[in-house]
């Protein structure tokens, strides 16, 4: 139990540090939220009232405590521009990002596992797969997106250019996002299979004449899964930040678009809420990955410290 407990506590600690860091960074900024709301020509009495209303007249540690208490209840404050609750704004934009992310993950898994297995089984494919996956990693999202639009939407007129009105709108963005993710995953799957496949117990299995399929699927793959799963967790970060760029390319109104807009409007509570939300998701995904190790690999006993690769 102690392994689970320690990981969860660390997760909380990381979230708390992130929240504190963002909170104090916001207070260091030269710009004043009251001025953003009221404009520069506000009367002093107005400024004073609003300052009281927002709790900005209280000492810093009181504000910090109130902020943490709000956070524990899921309250991220209110937007400076629209006055709506930040949590509500995020929830309204979240479905688009979730659709995009899920579809990208599905495409990534569908591409990378067959390709990784194929290149492991056939050394002749090593170089082509290396070249394809490296170019997939090297092509920037924000360049690949427009190229795909040019080809599939403008020239071939198969798919819509941008927006998020129908499922078809999500195809090109997901492919854009999945390219780099699957390129990296293919590399890891290949490497991991290679490392496991050259161990002596596998050689012994070959020597005993077991069928290829059986050795591969029930011996090599399960044991090679740990590094692969770790990378999937790592890719959650690339996925989250990738959605910010991809949403902008395809004008999808998800949380990435929201973040960039909030930054442009200097809506700091919204920026703060979004940064906390995104890093929270990332920390949770990696926590889930860590907690799944003992389930995937019984050798990792509970309570034994796992040395991350």
């Amino acid at each position, binding site marked *: 139990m102690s392994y689970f407990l320690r990981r969860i506590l660390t997760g909380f600690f990381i979230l708390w540090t992130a929240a504190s860091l963002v909170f104090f960074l916001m207070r260091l900024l030269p710009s004043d939220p009251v001025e953003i709301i009221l404009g520069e020509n506000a009367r002093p009495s107005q400024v004073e009232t609003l300052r009281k209303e927002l709790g900005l007249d209280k000492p810093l540690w009181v504000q910090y405590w109130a902020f943490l208490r709000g956070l524990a209840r899921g309250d991220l404050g209110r937007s400076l521009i629209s006055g709506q609750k930040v949590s509500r704004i995020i929830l309204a934009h979240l479905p688009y990002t979730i659709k995009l992310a899920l579809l990208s993950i599905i495409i990534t898994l569908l591409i990378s596992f067959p390709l990784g297995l194929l290149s492991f089984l056939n050394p002749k494919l090593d170089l082509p797969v290396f070249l394809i996956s490296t170019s997939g990693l090297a092509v920037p999202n924000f*360049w690949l997106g427009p190229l795909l639009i040019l080809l599939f939407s403008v020239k071939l007129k198969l798919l819509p250019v941008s927006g998020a009105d129908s499922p078809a709108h999500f195809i090109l963005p997901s492919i854009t996002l999945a390219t780099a993710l699957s390129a990296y995953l293919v590399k890891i799957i290949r490497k991991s299979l290679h490392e496991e496949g050259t161990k002596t117990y596998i050689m012994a299995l070959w020597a005993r004449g077991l069928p290829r399929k059986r050795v591969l699927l029930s011996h090599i793959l399960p044991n090679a899964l740990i590094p692969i799963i770790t990378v999937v967790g790592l890719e959650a970060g690339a996925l989250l930040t990738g959605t910010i760029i991809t949403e902008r390319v395809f004008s999808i109104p998800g949380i990435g678009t929201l973040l960039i807009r909030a930054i442009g409007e200097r809506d700091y509570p919204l920026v703060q809420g979004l940064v906390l939300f995104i890093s929270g998701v990332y920390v949770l995904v990696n926590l889930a990955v860590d907690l799944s190790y003992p389930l995937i690999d019984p050798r990792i006993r509970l309570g034994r410290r796992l040395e991350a690769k």
Partner: protein
Amino acid sequence: MRPNKLGLFLFLIPIVVSGLLLLLPQSSTAVNMKERLLPPSWSHPMGTDLLGRDVAKRVAEGVFISLALSFMVVLITTSVGTALGILSGFSGGVLDEAVMRAVDLLMAFPGFLLALTFVALLGGGFWNLIIALSFSGWTSYCRLSRGISVRLREEDFVASSLVLGAPYPWIFLHHILPHVLPVIRVQATVSMAGVILAESSLSFLGLGLQPPTPSLGGMIDEGRGFLLQAPWLSLFPGLFLFLLIMGLLMMAEEKNQEAFFS
């Protein structure tokens, strides 16, 4: 040709071409409304942009700005990361514990999000970008060099040096660093590619290099609205960006491309 040779070749293409393009007489920032959105020609090898500026000259300058920026970031992150890693790995104790906890903490967040938050709050521009992108970049070097120096600390040749009275800095330089550097070099190549991509991504989002400074990411963003009328606006900057990143990744071959994503 081995992949890493081919990688060097790919990496040099945009650099050499940009070097030649810099010799062009056109200015990269002079606005000329009479020559807007001209297709590629002899006087404008990559056409002109929305404000009539020469795209080729802007791409060339963008390439060198990107290179300078990423080189600075890699220089800062490698030296800070390696120094801290060797020091904490070798000394152990409280320092080691403190440094490694800081590393764990920074690595718990996606590096790009940290950089984005930083420039979103404090503004973009060349120097802010360098700080933002170095902020969490040193952690991977720190972890790598710490691992190596913890292992080396137990080796006989290090112990005998200590017994002979060699000062710590001398041991770091002559016994530890030579073992750390080859690993760091591969990592640095990959993360230079990562930094180039991160910088251009931020510039694409409008948070990185600010106009009129030419940046490859910013140019791709400007060209997005003119994909049909003027595809050269985003085609050329993207191609150069791709070649730079592809070349660097291939130079590092298979080893440790993890740094690219963190």
